């Protein structure tokens, strides 16, 4: 049973189509990398998954539930920037992952102490326990993104959406973040969508790599047609198919 179903999605801004005829199904626990050229609708697709926007046509269902109308607890997100709250300390940022859903967005008394100690465990896990009382502005880019991921995970989302999460990091830090993400995935096998510009990163981390591109191209009016998923690679085992007996390859199936 597929976990996320994307059914015949069209999205246009005004007269300009961005996405057309996007169909795919994703199993629970899969890591999906989304790659493609600039302006081909990768981030739009992620916003649709996030329910920050609603598609012009078609629907996205998670676990068979009706399509969401606004972002909610079941989808966690990490953007390239602005993913942590600058006015909260590192620890408070992680606590916010649990407390924002409550009436006034706060824990009190024993709850607060319990949440703080859970947050400290998370911080130790993501290697930020030594800066727990600092404000995010004092952290490096890699530390801020680690915090953003830790915060998103503290809310225990069913789907984690990453919008070029490592785009602003230097290559060394980026490799560390890959290891970090791989370890986290090993611990809690959640479904992840990651938009990236870096093909290597996409294939290294993803189980599947979705490529967005425009299947039709009008040379006199490049904006006439929208993009869709043109390739759906199986990226497991280094992208080499048939490494296991009884493997089901992800080949683009006709919708």
């Amino acid at each position, binding site marked *: 049973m597929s976990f996320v179903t994307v059914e015949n999605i069209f999205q246009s801004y005004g007269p300009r189509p961005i996405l057309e005829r996007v169909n795919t199904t994703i199993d629970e626990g899969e890591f999906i990398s989304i790659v493609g050229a600039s302006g081909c609708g990768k981030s739009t697709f992620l916003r649709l998954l*996030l329910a*920050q926007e609603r598609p012009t046509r078609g629907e996205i269902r998670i676990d068979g539930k009706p399509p969401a109308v*606004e*972002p*909610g*607890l079941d*989808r*966690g*997100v990490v*953007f390239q*920037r*602005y*993913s942590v*709250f*600058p*006015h*909260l300390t590192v620890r408070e940022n992680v606590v*916010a*992952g649990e407390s*924002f*859903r*409550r*009436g*006034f*967005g*706060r824990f009190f008394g024993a709850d607060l102490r319990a949440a703080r100690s859970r947050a400290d465990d998370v911080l130790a896990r993501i290697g930020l326990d030594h800066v727990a009382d600092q*404000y*995010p*502005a004092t952290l490096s880019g890699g530390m801020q993104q680690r915090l*953003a991921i830790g*915060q*998103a995970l503290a*809310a225990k*989302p069913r789907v984690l959406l990453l919008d070029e999460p490592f785009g602003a990091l230097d290559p060394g830090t980026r490799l560390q973040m890959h290891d970090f993400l791989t370890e986290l995935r090993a611990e809690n096998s959640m479904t992840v969508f990651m938009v990236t510009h870096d093909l290597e990163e996409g294939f290294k981390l993803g189980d599947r790599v979705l490529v967005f591109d425009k299947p039709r191209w009008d040379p006199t009016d490049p904006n006439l047609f929208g993009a869709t998923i043109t390739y759906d690679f199986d990226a497991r085992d280094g992208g080499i198919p048939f490494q296991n007996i009884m493997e089901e390859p992800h080949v683009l199936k006709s919708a």
Partner: protein
Amino acid sequence: MRLINRRPGVVLATLLTLLPFVAVLIAYAIGSDIRLTANPADKLLPAPATVLETAGRLLTEPDRRSGDVLFWLDTWASLKRLLIGVGISAFIATLFGLLIGLLPVFRSTLAGFVAVVSMIPPLALLPILFIVFGLGELSKVVLIVIGILPFLIRDLSGRVLEIPREMIVKAETLGASTLVIALRVALPQLLPRLIQAIRLSLGPAWLFLIAAEAIAADQGLGYRIFLVRRYLAMDVILTYVIWITALAFVMDWMLKTASRKAFPWSEGTL
């Protein structure tokens, strides 16, 4: 070396800071001296020593009739009006800034209205205020509020809109309701900007206060200045002007310091 790259050292920088103050003082002293040698009874530019002497008298000697030191009564009356006016404005502006900045329904309803209302010259409304609210404290406070509130609302709602959409969406994915987003994401980020906006609106607030006091009051710094103007008492006026300047400067400095202390995370953004 280019001029843009030349930085004064600590000593020079301090001297340069003091320079314009000293220059103005010296210019005043010279001008006053020239006029006083020509006419010892001249009232327009009293000698600095006379101003100091008057200041000492104003600050300490009680009024012969009431037994109070009018200077402090005036200060207290004016400060009270100013603080109440600015406080009310800040509160309303924060509320409306959040509502307009966060809720599209409110933005559609009010943003245009506030933009138009903020174009009304507040002083033109002063007669109406005196008629409606009487000549008491209320009309002065209301003038300050009317004078600075539209600016504060426009500024603060703009600041709320500047909060990156990503941050709001992130809060939504953590399950935050509109109330929680307002209280825990938008409001804390708005407060340092509120202080910034109040600092900017303190100048207009003083302007409206003194204008209101000049026209109808029985005490207050602006009232006193316009009262003694009739007697050409430049020494008194100068004392009051210097005192108002000092008060405004100290308020500004206190707000700046408070903002730094209370919002250490905003250091980089302000």
